[in-house]
């Protein structure tokens, strides 16, 4: 990475940051430069996978059915749904916030009692 290359900020896990910083120091390069190199390796390693997926889509478009194409598109549906559930669980209101909001509802006579 040259000194004139523009840079952007990205958040990485602290552990990744620490390890990258340590290895970069040993190699006498900047941590960002090391991460950029890792990214190029990632792209190179996944290029074949991406190309194979494209080939599979092309084959489905050529010889398959829309249902098969939809199945390919949804191949990670379960994993995506698991992440959605994690997101929903993380959005649960805290007990304090809940109590406050429930009280508001009770005051406005909109509360549904058991």
């Amino acid at each position, binding site marked *: 990475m040259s000194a004139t290359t523009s840079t952007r900020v990205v958040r990485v896990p602290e552990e990744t940051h620490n390890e990258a910083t340590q290895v970069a120091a040993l190699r006498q390069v900047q941590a960002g430069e090391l991460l950029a190199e890792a990214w190029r390796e990632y792209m190179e390693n996944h290029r074949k996978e991406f190309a194979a997926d494209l080939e599979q*889509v092309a084959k489905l*478009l050529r010889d398959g059915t*829309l249902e098969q194409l939809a199945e390919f598109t949804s191949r990670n*549906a*379960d994993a995506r749904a698991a992440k*959605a559930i994690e997101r929903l669980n993380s959005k649960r209101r805290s007990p304090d916030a*809940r109590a406050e909001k429930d009280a508001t509802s009770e005051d406005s006579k909109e*509360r549904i009692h058991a």
Partner: protein
Amino acid sequence: MDRPTSLIGKTAGGAYICTDWELRVTARCLDEDLNASENADFDTILGLEIVKAFVKDRATQPTGSKRINPLSSGQEVWRLGYGHDHRGATFYDEDEAVIWLTAYGRHRSGASDDFFPYCKQLDAESRLLPTQQDIARMYRDRDRRFVNAVTIEAPLALKAARETEGEYCCTIGGELGAGLAIEVIEELEATSITVAFRPAAGGPLTTVTMEQGQVLLQSLTCGKWGMIGRMPSRDLEPDEVAFTITLVAGEVA
């Protein structure tokens, strides 16, 4: 999100499509409360009174006026009423643009099978809210709608892009906002197609999947697309990703 305008006000698989979200029923509610198959399509339950109320009340308003609380899940679940005693519970997931009917029953104050204690019991058992299987089915329905639409719309978009100077912008499959730029490289007798796409409804790129992008690319023209860092005439927006392909003369569809 993936709501082609031609589907608004209609059922599609397990969904009823509204302008800004879709309505769905959880598998548990279908099976245990509505006496339907847990994989029932929405059109098979449209005749039920509570489902009519669900469509009528939630097609334009994502929440009701009364919450069902307190719930141990901590989520906001809204009362849906029809007639004297038909009651339902709905849950609005704004991030996914979906409203779920999560429970149905009769309201009989003091009775052992009154709807509201039933609702709270379901919540306490972690059976009130949509499950991972419900959401996965929603994704599969959406992907099916996307695939059906994109295979028709992508070739039309490509044709329009070839007739447009500069970048041609459109929405594909109701889900992807796409910018297409086509350049003729005369010295190589080749044509380069560059596509940038992003979620049509805005929001983060995470709402688009790699598979959707791959289906879009190959529906435009089959070949070896590669990722690219900018469009021919501009930098990418933060929520965009772009791919390009170069084809020798005669290969463009």
